[in-house]
């Protein structure tokens, strides 16, 4: 039985390698992880961008650079043009009576107040305050972009494997080879398992690669693999259900897009929604995977929590499978 399952898988793998599909899908998470790693150093926590004139006192520019990113321009009009662009940047120009702060009006946050405080502080440097203000930290170096970016890549990467399943089924349907399994010496469940295996193996490889590229080498890989296997299960079920009803790649790809929505909603909702709104995402298995991966990356995960989240993923996946069971069965006939 195992030999037959492996031969179905290796046939798909060989076919995928021949037209480079498997290669691309294997490379994709690694490439995305490298892009994310390249982006991370340029991402700052909340700071401000300030545009100043080249003629501004050099000491003042150095002073501002200790608080913000400073860009210099040769005249006021250039500063105003720069402020008008899409990103958030404030203008700061010396006047006879003090300073002029120029903003566009649609900036996020309290940039103007911060600039006022920073500029005024320069005049108060010698002022003795009755309080001492200190800033310290608890030594946690992981930036939120890296934390959530890695999580997004892992959860999103779980569909990569199911894309191979989906396309290989559509290809078989187009070349009428799918019906051949009815007369081949292989049970239908062996065929399904064989076809589905790549849908588990590829996300696991992608996840481990992503985590290593991003420097998460100290995390618990056992918990990670369990979570990825669970989340791959839902992708594989959806991959099968779309594949068996699609007669050509257009429908398959458009159907695959449907899966992007719950993934995006789960990850971005998990990041941005306040705790009291998180219950809105409990229906999504991707949300539970997001939570597991988050705790694994933060190294706060324990087996009880991971098993509980995995249990939710399996239950929700079983529900989806129950809904789609007849459709898959019928499609394979």
């Amino acid at each position, binding site marked *: 039985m195992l030999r037959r399952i492996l031969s179905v898988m290796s046939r798909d793998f060989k076919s995928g390698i021949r*037209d*480079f*599909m498997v290669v691309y899908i294997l490379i*994709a998470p690694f490439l995305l992880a490298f*892009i994310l790693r390249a*982006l991370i150093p340029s*991402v*700052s926590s909340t*700071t*401000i*961008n300030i545009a100043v004139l080249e003629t501004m006192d050099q000491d003042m520019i150095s002073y501002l650079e200790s*608080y913000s990113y400073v860009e210099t321009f040769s005249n006021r009009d250039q500063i105003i043009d720069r*402020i008008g662009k*899409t*990103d958030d*940047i404030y203008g700061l120009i010396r006047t006879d*009576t*003090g*300073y*002029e*702060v*120029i*903003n*566009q009006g*649609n*900036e996020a*946050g309290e*940039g103007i107040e*911060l600039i006022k405080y*920073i*500029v*005024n502080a320069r005049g*108060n440097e010698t*002022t003795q*305050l*009755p*309080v001492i*203000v200190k*800033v*310290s*930290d608890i*030594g*946690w170096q*992981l*930036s939120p972009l890296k*934390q959530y970016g890695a999580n997004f890549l892992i959860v*999103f990467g779980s569909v990569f494997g199911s894309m191979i399943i989906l*396309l290989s089924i559509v290809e078989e349907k*187009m070349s009428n080879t799918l019906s051949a399994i009815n007369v081949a010496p292989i049970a239908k469940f062996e065929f399904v398992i064989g076809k589905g295996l790549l849908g588990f193996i590829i996300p696991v490889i992608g996840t481990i690669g992503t985590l290593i590229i991003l420097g998460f080498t100290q995390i618990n890989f056992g918990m990670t693999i369990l979570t990825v296997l669970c989340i791959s299960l839902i992708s594989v079920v959806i991959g099968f259900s779309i594949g068996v009803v699609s007669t*050509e*790649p*257009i*429908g398959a*790809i*458009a159907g695959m*897009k449907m899966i992007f*929505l719950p993934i995006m*909603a789960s990850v971005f909702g998990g990041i*941005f929604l*306040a705790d009291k709104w998180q219950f809105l995402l409990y229906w999504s298995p991707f949300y539970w995977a997001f939570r597991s991966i988050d705790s694994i990356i933060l190294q706060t995960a324990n087996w009880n929590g991971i098993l509980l989240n995995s249990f939710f993923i399996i239950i929700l996946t079983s529900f989806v499978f129950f809904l789609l069971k007849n459709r898959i069965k019928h499609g394979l006939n």
Partner: protein
Amino acid sequence: MRLLYNFLKDMRLSSKSFYFYLEIGFTVIIIAVLLFVVPENFENNLSIYLHLDVDDALYGEIMGTLGDNSTDEITIVDSREALEEAMSENRSSVGLSIYRENNQTVYNFVLQGYEEEKFKNIIKTTVETAFANEMFGDTDNITVITLNQGVEKLSDRINMIPIILTMNVSFMGLFIIASYIFLDKEEGTIRALAVTPNRMWEYLLGKMGVLLVSGIISGFLLMAIMVGSKANYLHFSVLLITTSLFGSALGLFVSSFFDTMTKAMGWLFMIIIIFALAATSYFSPSFSPMIIKFLPSYPIMFAFREVLLNNPDINYIYMTALGFGVATIVLFIAANYRFRKTLTI
């Protein structure tokens, strides 16, 4: 005339396909999620853990000030160790430890550790200046000039629409057009084309037209329900048409380097994920590295946002549309050149 015939024929065939309705169904689901799941505005409260080791009078004063002014979630903890432990459990939180040392009150802001030095300097300086202003009065000699008075800020829900329009409507063709072309190739329709008076560019343009119609239906459906009459539909149409054609032309150009759908799909999928990165700068405009500004999705998202405003920057919208119009022509010519050599082989 032949072009129109091609387009109408493709439209007729597409309107019978499952895909055409799936795309519209997908838009309906997005609308439902926006209306019933996404709140109008997200509450973005900061979690603050506070440890106070001060006398009762100062304790009361601090608590009074916090109670009056703060909209953040403040949790009082018993000790510095408890503060650090609580922060370790919640990595998006900050801490504040207030205690007495050498007859002075120390305000120790405790961060996680990933924050930049510039950010730490901002916190220290702004708090010190706030104290100085409190004691010696505000010595402000700064004038604020706002270039666009009364500028409108979109709700969080509406603010998501440009991202959906960019990724799901403008770049819809990126994926789908390759499927159309390779399906025709596998079914032998392309070979039949070689013996008709149709030229390659007419065939390709016909396919782009189908995706444009699909994009227009999805885009207008989304805008009509979510934004209603508030948006300027002339600006919207110009932007939607040019960017949608750009997405299809880019899809054609990329797929012209491959001979099957499966080979092209990996790269097309990667391109769409990379384009989605522009959403990070869209939501946090102070973070806009050059690498993201070069992505075509970046100006498209901001141009769609302008369309939603009461006083849009018309220059920006039309310059974006013009830029993508020109890019579409260049990509289309290049794709046509490549497909003429490869598609009928």
